[in-house]
């Protein structure tokens, strides 16, 4: 049955001006198979997906669907051939209802009159299939991201998709929601639907997929049976070298208490108290919406506090001024890098120095040469990959953007506490290890780090102490070595 692939691309090449984006890539998808596509950022995954879904056309090579030439030139033709893509950034229309979103391209009608009863019935049927319990008339904008994603899946099913492509489907989901998604994927498999699965989370891929194709720098590396590989093997295929010690944490002797939070209460956080010593990494684990980001925002004064105190080196941090918090040495690397972290229209240099500009002040003027010098040093120290510090930050990969934002605080003379929210979200494996390395080194220089993370392995391996939060409260504290995935989870749910 080798010829019976649902989809096959052979020796595909794609050029963009100055870039050989795909260099002889092969990929096959069987019926009822979950086929994962992995590679670092820029490896060519998105280009391949765009070719499959009709956004780009191939320069060279073959693209077959069920053994016949695909002849897909536009995204619309791809949908007609049964290919649906669920993008990382959802493409639903927020002010339309669930049912309208699902059916708006193919509303059932009799002579132009929409049969709404049928629409809602069909929607309900499909919703129960994926376990979505909502009113079909609810506007999509009111749904949490996880549920919106289910709506996207329903949309694909209603369009009779034979191939569903999922691009980082779990990046915004909690563990529960991920489990539900896994269940749905298994069910789709049993119906003979082929799934192309893209994710940075290798543990997830190892659990879910049947086969894995690895790309690197636009080259096809290999396709392997999932059962035959380990995570380490996969990582070395992706980065092209052995990656030793993903988690480099070497605990150091903790110093004085630097950050102390006492009874902090906001609209989303209730009576949270904890402290962090110099040289410590303290983790906050919990489900999405447990109040961890809100806690961080309250600490730096971005959100209103109702009661409680935040003390840095014995001095109280004012409740309503992030600039004062920064002055006292607290930096915050936000979770939503794109919307809350970077200044997309600015270059790397301006993004990096925005919080530390005072250090470059020369009577009234910013001293450009000092600034450039410091930025270049940071770029070198943190291995930020960029042709120039005048490059727009939005053109960097996620990992490099994250490093720039880290550098924003690291270049400050008086930095004492760094709160870093989901430090490696949307970042590829190589850069991940580098960021862990940076954090580890910083603590050895006496920085106190608060790490908020939903990724169990990183929190278990990197943190000296771990707090678990649930519904705005701290439910448990673990020391390094005491905590296990199960323990954290049981306290989080």
């Amino acid at each position, binding site marked *: 049955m080798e010829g019976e692939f649902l989809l096959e691309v052979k020796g595909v090449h794609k050029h963009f001006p100055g870039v050989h984006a795909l260099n002889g890539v092969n990929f096959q998808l069987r019926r009822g198979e979950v086929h994962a596509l992995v590679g670092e950022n820029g490896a060519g995954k998105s280009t391949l997906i765009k070719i499959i879904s009709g956004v780009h056309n191939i320069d060279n090579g073959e693209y077959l669907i069920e053994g016949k030439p695909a002849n897909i030139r536009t995204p619309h033709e791809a949908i007609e051939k049964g290919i649906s893509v669920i993008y990382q950034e959802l493409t639903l229309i927020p002010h339309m209802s669930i049912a309208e979103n699902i059916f708006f391209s193919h509303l059932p009608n009799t002579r132009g009159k929409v049969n709404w009863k049928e629409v809602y019935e069909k929607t309900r049927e499909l919703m129960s299939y994926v376990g979505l319990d909502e009113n079909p008339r609810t506007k999509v904008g009111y749904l949490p991201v996880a549920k919106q994603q289910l709506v996207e899946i329903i949309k694909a099913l209603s369009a009779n998709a034979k191939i569903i492509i999922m691009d980082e489907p779990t990046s915004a989901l909690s563990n529960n929601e991920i489990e539900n998604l896994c269940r749905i994927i298994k069910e789709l498999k049993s119906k003979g639907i082929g799934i192309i699965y893209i994710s940075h989370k290798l543990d997830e891929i190892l659990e879910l997929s049947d086969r894995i194709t690895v790309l690197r720098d636009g080259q096809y590396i290999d396709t392997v049976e999932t059962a035959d590989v380990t995570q380490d093997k996969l990582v070395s295929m992706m980065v092209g070298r052995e990656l030793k010690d993903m988690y480099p944490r070497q605990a150091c002797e903790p110093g004085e208490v630097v950050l102390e939070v006492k009874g902090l209460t906001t609209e989303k956080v209730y009576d949270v108290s904890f402290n962090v010593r110099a040289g410590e990494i303290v983790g906050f684990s919990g489900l999405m919406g447990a109040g961890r980001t809100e806690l961080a925002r309250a600490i730096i004064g971005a959100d209103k506090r109702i009661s409680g105190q935040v003390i840095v080196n014995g001095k109280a941090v004012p409740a309503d001024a992030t600039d004062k918090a920064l002055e006292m040495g607290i930096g915050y690397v936000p979770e939503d890098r794109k919307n809350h972290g970077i200044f997309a229209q600015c270059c790397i240099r301006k993004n990096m120095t925005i919080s530390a*500009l005072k250090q470059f002040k020369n009577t009234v003027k910013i001293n450009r040469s000092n600034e450039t010098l410091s930025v270049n040093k940071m770029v070198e120290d943190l291995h930020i990959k960029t042709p120039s510090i005048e490059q727009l930050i939005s053109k960097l990969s996620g990992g490099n953007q994250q490093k720039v934002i880290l550098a924003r605080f690291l270049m400050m003379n008086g930095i004492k506490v760094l709160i870093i929210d989901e430090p490696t979200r949307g970042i590829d494996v190589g850069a991940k290890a580098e960021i862990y390395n940076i954090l580890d080194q910083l603590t050895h220089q006496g920085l106190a780090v608060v790490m908020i993370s939903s990724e169990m392995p990183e929190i278990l391996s990197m943190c000296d102490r771990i707090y678990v939060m649930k519904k705005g409260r701290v439910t448990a504290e673990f020391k390094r070595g005491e905590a296990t995935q199960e323990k954290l989870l049981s306290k989080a749910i």
Partner: protein
Amino acid sequence: MEKTSKGHFFKSITRFEQAALVIALLAICIVFSILSSSFMTVLNITNVLRQVSLMVIAGIGMVLLLLLGEIDISVGSLQAAVGIASVTVLNATGSIILALLAALATGVVSGLLNGIIVTKGGVNSFIATLGTMAIIRGIGMVVTKAVSIPVRVPEFAEIGAGQLFGIPVPVIISAALVIFFYFVLNHTIFGRQIYAIGGNSEAAKLAGLPVQKIKLQVFVLAGVLFALSAFILASRLDAGQPIAGQGFEMQVIAAVILGGVSMSGGNGTLSGALLGMLILGVIQNGLVLLNVSSFYHDIVRGAVIILAVYLDERRKKNAAKQLLRSSNK
């Protein structure tokens, strides 16, 4: 090798951004000087600059606000209020300095009012200043009973009409301000912070920038600049007029946007805005020189704005496409 070519590419884009406007300005000037012999004369150039200079002074304030992602449409009403305040003080005291202080104080008060409503009240600045626009205009009407106040100090006219080394005083003032604010925007912390807040105010807040404080400061600063242009306008009109500055806000905003300053904040340059204001000023001047019926003026001006913005959008799209290609490996 790739490094240098990319760096070069970025520079050429930023240069091109201004180039489109410079070419447009030159083209318009060439057309007018062919059609009218009096266009390319020292006298006329001086006139155009003098007329544009008022808009430039107010325009700097508008650029600061737009870069911050805010707007102030009460600027037209303020032209009237400041004129009335300064001429009243001038007539009462005979002192131009005190009149200037009265003008600036009026600007500060209005800027504070707008700034507080926006930052503390959390009201969208368009709506807030739509309100203060009516309030300020109303106060001017109430105080004067809609009758303009004539200036009784003859020297006052020198501010608007006078010359230094053959250059009109308003032109010197506006040029000095342009240079000063160019420096502020490009070489000081304050300028950097304005761009950052306008680009992404949430990120700026989380990066430890005093967002509300800077917004308030810029509203006040803009108020002062608006007041300065109003002060010179009063001198030019030789009166404090309650109906002065009607529609001025739209002229300023249109010119600044024509110069490539984005209404959504964080994008734009003072030099671009200056070119935008010059283009509109030259068009206005040229059409009168050519004795074109005033009914066509608005049509031409509207067409130029749409064309310029269209070209700008196309340029941005092309630049984005090229960027995408060069970075999509």
